[in-house]
């Protein structure tokens, strides 16, 4: 029902995979670039069993609902998330999948799919926690919601002094994701 730019992005996976952080990172970037943005996590006992997800809405106009029934983008970090969000994704939407933790690949044909073994790649990069940055990169490669420069800048800011040592790996993970995401395009 809309004319102007409006995207609804869901990040979903286990707690500890940096799912919420990925969503917040996007939100901060959008804020810096001056668009309207909302971020909302799933909350409460759903979290039992360790699953976590959040929705980021990016829009050119004030945002009514921060929640989404039919997201335009879903970044799924594990199998339950894939099972949960493949179906509701809106036709033509983008599905970013962490191949490392799924049982069977997505089956929908009316959506755009990027699938990469993020956890394995992260482990190769020497830090499993980089899974989220790799998937984030892949997302950006297909939906340039914000500029890579903004992302790098905010990422460094958010890591801050205490986690400065993680800067480099994070940036490499991000780049890696961008690459692979773009590559699959061709």
């Amino acid at each position: 029902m809309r004319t102007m730019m409006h995207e609804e992005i869901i990040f979903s996976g286990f707690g500890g995979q940096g799912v919420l952080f990925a969503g917040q990172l996007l939100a901060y970037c959008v804020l810096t670039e001056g668009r309207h943005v909302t971020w909302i996590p799933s909350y409460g006992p759903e979290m039992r069993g360790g699953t976590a997800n959040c929705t980021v809405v990016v829009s050119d106009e004030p945002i009514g609902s921060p929640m989404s029934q039919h997201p335009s983008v879903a970044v799924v970090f594990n199998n339950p998330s894939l099972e949960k969000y493949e179906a509701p994704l809106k036709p033509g939407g983008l599905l970013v999948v962490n191949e490392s933790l799924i049982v069977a690949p997505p089956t929908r044909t009316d959506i755009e799919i990027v699938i990469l073994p993020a956890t394995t790649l992260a482990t190769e990069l020497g830090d499993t926690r980089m899974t989220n940055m790799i998937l984030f990169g892949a997302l950006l490669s297909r939906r340039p919601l914000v500029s890579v420069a903004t992302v790098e800048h905010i990422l460094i800011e958010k890591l801050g002094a205490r986690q400065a040592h993680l800067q480099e790996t994070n940036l490499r993970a991000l780049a890696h994701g961008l690459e692979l995401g773009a590559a699959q395009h061709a």
Partner: protein
Amino acid sequence: MAAELMKGNVALAEAAIRAGVEAYFGYPITPQTELLEHMAKRMPELGRAFVQAESELAAINMVYGAACTGARAMTSSSSPGISLMQEGFSYIAGSEVPCVVVDIMRGGPGLGNIQPSQSDYFQVTRSAGHGDYHAIVLAPSSVQEAIDLMVEAFDLADEYRHLVFVVADGLIGQMMEPAELPPMQPLRRPLGDWALTGADGREKNIITSLELNAPDLEELNNRLQAKLAHIREHQQRSAEMLTEDARLIVVGYGTSGRIAETAVKQARREGMKVGLFRPISLWPFPEKRLSALADQVGAFLVVEMNAGQMLDDVRLAAGGQVPVTFYGRTGGMVPMPEEIHQEIVTQYNKLTTSAV
């Protein structure tokens, strides 16, 4: 100070701190717990009082005690916890002590769930507990408005020595949105000569809601009612969008008002003369403005995340002049702009056809 991304619950907590809250007492409950957690971190840092109470019952009575000293005091909870505070609310209102309470509403009845809801409308606007009174009730629809109303809540509580609610739902409590915080206010105490600070060089002060003698208690109630009448006269708050020429006006507060806004804009794009009326003070209900609008519109469409509670107030304000229809979701379901838009179309068509 530039806008930053803030979670509603955290924004409410930090806003209260900036407003000079000296004491926070609370008990964890989803979806407001981040408010308590932020207080747990910040209040001790600032040398202010924080106690995680053994229950909501204890929490509201701790607030009552702290407020008796003239300190700005507050608690926060969600629907079931608010039910447990009813007796405390009634004591606070009866003894005219300023207190602020945040209710981040969730799905009910009973344990229900923790999803966003507006089903405490009756509970907070009618009389929160036994006895004759209404608390002041403010309902923000964004993180920024939550911050602004939180500060205002303390001022109103002090001005009227009354109980003030800030009510939102899990959605506003949990979401992050860009918003700006106010500067830190200095603490100011005692607020009034009525406060309990020790009878040093003055007559003793007593804070009580007890009047065994009926004429005296009626006296107290008349005072209270006069105060409420004054509040009703001067503190009605609402926001409007595209109402000037509207034939159909959607009435919604908080989250449902916010979501309705999207739907109303869409309807306008499609050429329908539709407007939005968003009550900000649920009590006093902005009846003056609404009845004024009643003279002008063809119908009202009330949208709530409950089975129809504010509906009564809209009908009372509309005074039977124009039809008032209702669209609601319950059980923690949040209406999507599309649904509301659909309902607008339906009601709007009724209007135009009936007009023909």
